[in-house]
């Protein structure tokens, strides 16, 4: 079973449109597809009824994992397969099969452990491919997937150069090499420093969360060979760490648990600046677990504020696509291109299903 | 003390104090009366309910049998 995560850099970056695009492609390949999400994909509240409007279209046969109480909120009819021992703020999460296609509200497991348990259930249900929708900029639960599709676009930042810088940064972080010393660091859950003479310093902390701790670890690491940072490593503090050690970084290896740990607090541009600095000083950064980036999707749409209200606007999609393709090795897909065809296809599929 | 002599017998000071208990309130009132210049004083009533204490403190100006300022007609 292959597990794909859909991560957005912000709201309105077309994550859901991208998800539907891939969902359709998957069904074209006749695979048994599972679908869940780590947030709540139900669109804004309908201001008339106060109820959320669903927007994820699920073809017949899709296996979804969502809060049980969300099943009734969509237009898709589902057959309950299993109530999982996992819940979120909306209650217990269940596995269900779509028997009549339609829109569904997807609110699945929102923490890493729960996502792992849910993915196991998908595997038991015979899924070959599972899509996991993201929420806001939350990346950490995606440690559990096999690859990521990243949605970005004008909603995150309208300035092209900013989007380019960020995408380059994300590409860089997701392509960090896997650590060769994996075995040695495996069992370590806190910050550990291995010295040249074989001496080991273990910290109580897992994560670099304060400038004071950064200083302390940097001091202890002056003559280290390998530094394992298993928890969160915010970009700004990694920058401080690199400045503290400076030339002393030469020949040292920093091992971070996985790429998501460098994305916390949304400080990935800062993280990449730090990675560049570490490299310049002759050090290297590796990850215990890689999460491959599969594709970048772009959405030129953004909500523009005019006189205190919002209206739809777009930046130049082609320009954006070309600019991003230049800084990442993975395919860049404009979700607005081919959009109408996709919707038409979907509609046709629905009609056909009903006719049957 | 030109006004004091006109008090018939005593001056009562009643208030509501924020205090932990009646003991603390008593101390505060005694201190206050001394600060106001009344050496001969007493606490007539203390009652604590809730966050404070109701208190009635008394400063004697003319105890019965002393020489009364108002009778002497002196300082005013």
């Amino acid at each position, binding site marked *: 079973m292959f597990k794909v995560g859909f991560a957005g850099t*912000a*709201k309105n970056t077309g994550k859901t449109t991208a998800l539907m695009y891939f969902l359709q492609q998957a069904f074209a390949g006749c695979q048994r597809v599972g679908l869940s999400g*780590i*947030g*709540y994909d*139900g669109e804004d*509240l309908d*201001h008339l009824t106060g109820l*959320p409007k669903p927007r994820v279209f699920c073809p017949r046969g899709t296996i979804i994992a969502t*809060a049980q109480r969300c099943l009734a909120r969509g237009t898709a009819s589902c057959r309950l397969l299993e109530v999982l021992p996992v819940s*979120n*703020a*909306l209650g217990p999460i269940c596995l269900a099969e779509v028997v009549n296609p339609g829109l569904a509200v997807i*609110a699945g497991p*929102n*923490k*890493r*452990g729960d996502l792992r348990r849910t993915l196991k259930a998908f595997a038991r249900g015979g899924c070959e491919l599972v899509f996991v929708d993201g*929420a*806001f*900029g*939350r*990346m*950490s*639960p995606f440690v559990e997937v096999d690859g990521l599709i990243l949605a970005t676009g004008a909603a995150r930042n309208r300035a092209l150069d900013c989007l380019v810088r960020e995408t380059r940064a994300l590409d860089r972080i997701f392509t960090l090499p896997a650590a060769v010393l994996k075995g040695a660091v495996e069992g370590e*859950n806190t910050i550990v420093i291995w010295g040249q003479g074989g001496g080991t310093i273990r910290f109580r*902390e*897992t*994560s670099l*969360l*304060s400038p004071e701790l950064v200083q302390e670890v940097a001091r202890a690491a002056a003559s280290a060979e390998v530094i394992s940072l*298993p*928890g*969160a490593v*915010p970009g700004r*503090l990694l920058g401080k760490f690199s400045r503290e050690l400076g030339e002393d970084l030469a020949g040292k290896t920093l091992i971070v648990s996985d790429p*998501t*740990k460098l994305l*916390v*607090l*949304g400080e990935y541009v800062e993280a990449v600046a730090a990675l560049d600095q570490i490299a310049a000083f002759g050090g290297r950064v590796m990850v215990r677990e890689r999460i491959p980036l599969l594709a970048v999707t772009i959405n030129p749409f953004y909500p523009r*504020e005019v*006189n*205190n*209200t*919002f209206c739809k606007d777009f930046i130049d999609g082609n320009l954006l696509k070309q600019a991003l393709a230049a800084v990442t090795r993975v395919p860049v897909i404009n979700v607005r291109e081919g959009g109408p065809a996709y919707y038409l296809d979907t509609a046709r599929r629905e009609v056909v299903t009903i006719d049957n | 003390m030109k006004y004091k002599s006109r008090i018939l017998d005593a001056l009562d000071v*009643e*208030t*509501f104090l*924020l205090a*932990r208990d009646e003991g603390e309130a008593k101390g505060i009132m005694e201190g206050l009366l001394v600060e106001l210049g009344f050496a001969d004083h007493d606490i007539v009533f203390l009652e604590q*309910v*809730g*966050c*404070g204490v*109701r208190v009635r403190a008394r400063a004697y100006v003319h105890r019965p049998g002393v020489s009364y300022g108002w009778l002497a007609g002196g300082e005013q």
Partner: protein
Amino acid sequence: MMAAERKKILLVPLDPVHDVGLKLIRRALKEAGHDTLLLPPGLEPNEVVSKLLEQNGVDFVLVSRTIGYRVGELLAEFVDLVEACGVRERVILVVGGMAVRPELAAELGFDAGFGSGTTPEEVVAYVEGRPFVAGKERGTGKKKVDLTAGYSYAYRNREIEKQLDLITQEILTWVGNKTSPAVERARLAFSALRGEIEPGEFREKYLGYCDDLVRDYYNHRRLPNRTRLLDREELDALERHQHWEGISTAVREGLPRPAIFIQYGTGCPIMDIMHIKTCEAWGADGVVHFDPSWGARTEGLLAGYLAHSEDGTVITLENLRLLKEYLWPGTLWQVRAHRGLNTPETVVLAGEVGADLTKINMVYASLGAGMDPARMTVDGVEAIRWAVHYGLSFDVVTNEELCGVPAYKAFAGMLIVAHLARKMGGRPILQPLFCRSPEVMIYGQMKDNYIDYNAAKILALQGIIDAPLWPGAPIGFLTHTEDRVQSAVTTALHACLARSLGVEAISIASSDEAYAGGPIVAASRIDTLRGTYEGFRFFGSAGIEPTSRAQEWAQELVAGITRVLKDVASSGSFVQALYRGLLGSPEDGAYPGRVGRGTLLRKEPGEDV
């Protein structure tokens, strides 16, 4: 008393300033025996997570934050960081604040979300892993009473009921397609409090319906005269100041009725809190918020923790929330809306913040408080609608008696508003005045005693309808002098009379009631509470016996009320009846007001009525 396992809870105001709600929750958690640690407001997510990691064995993290621009991102980053640090599985993350819904909590990655209207007891129940049953919490201390419980609102006087039906039907039809700046503001405020409207959009639209005083405040930070903003240090100092912890003696213990209300409004919410705490301890069952009179004549409400150096505490969302934080759970809280340009909006705030009661009477507001009858009728109906929405019961006061309107006319107006409320699904409480009004000074009903005419009023109303009665406001109005002994005695005696007549509640004054030279002091509030208690103790279940005049006057009142209602009904227009003086005329001393005249709008915006 603690049945549940002791939990360790970290309380996080992930907000630049607000932590009032969390403090309230912390108190409830502490009372339930749990360990709590409240972080200061304004920390960054990484600082909060550092604190979480430093603490061993935290079971719950309760984050409070009002939803607004980019707040979702901030909260999501916080959750993500907790996960990245490897402790997400060990701790339950809860988010609370205005506009938080379970769907949003799920989207942000929290385990639970609590929105506005959540009680601390609900949060305690969640933490203890048991289902929350509203109204069954708080086994100890004073119980909050529902003043309207057990009343059928059935009419004992069919003729009056018939006239009221005609009049109120006409009012609802007349109001039909009309709206007003206040009605629009109330709807905007409601949407904004739910996060359904962007702050920028809200502000622009809201200020479009406001007076310059309010606009200047929002746009140029220009404070109205004699007001100032309380600063963070003062509010923090208040939080540290906990003299009243753990006190819960009710001096009225064992005496079921009536509930005793005091009226506060020193101008400063901090002083109000001290007065409220004092009164609660000395036996008050409820407290009534008084706002400055200019607040009623200004279109729009201000914002912020605002102190006022004269009578009346300014109604702002923040002030009300602050006051609510310090109220005992068993204390009834009334936020008055009745007499001004902000009536519907005040009900919305009162409902959102968790008040129990409000006050609405468009007849008094029109005849005794300077409001234009047409505008006030539209606003009044909308205010009742909001009160019903929030489940707030409200009193209908007859303060126009103080202007000289005879009781039978004032009561006719009161019954119209109460009947209207019933039609709309509300639970009104009748509030006849216990007062030595101009009427009785002229006609001499109190020449011999204060008992008979006050009793007549109650008997008259009890003969008309089975509805709760709450004499006010305050009882003994115009019998008080500056002498505190006299003042406390007259209050106590009026209270005993009310109790003997079987009313549901009373509002009492302090012994400073007649003193107009400065603020009321806490000691004077204790005077009358103490006096009332002694009176209740003295009479016990023994009653006060009015003379036969009481029944005669009661019959005269009912006849007068019937006459007035027939006149109003046959006039065909309630609003015109107000202008024409049928419910109180210039000869009586009542003048239809001008405030808000010509401000009504049609429901389609832009068109004047």
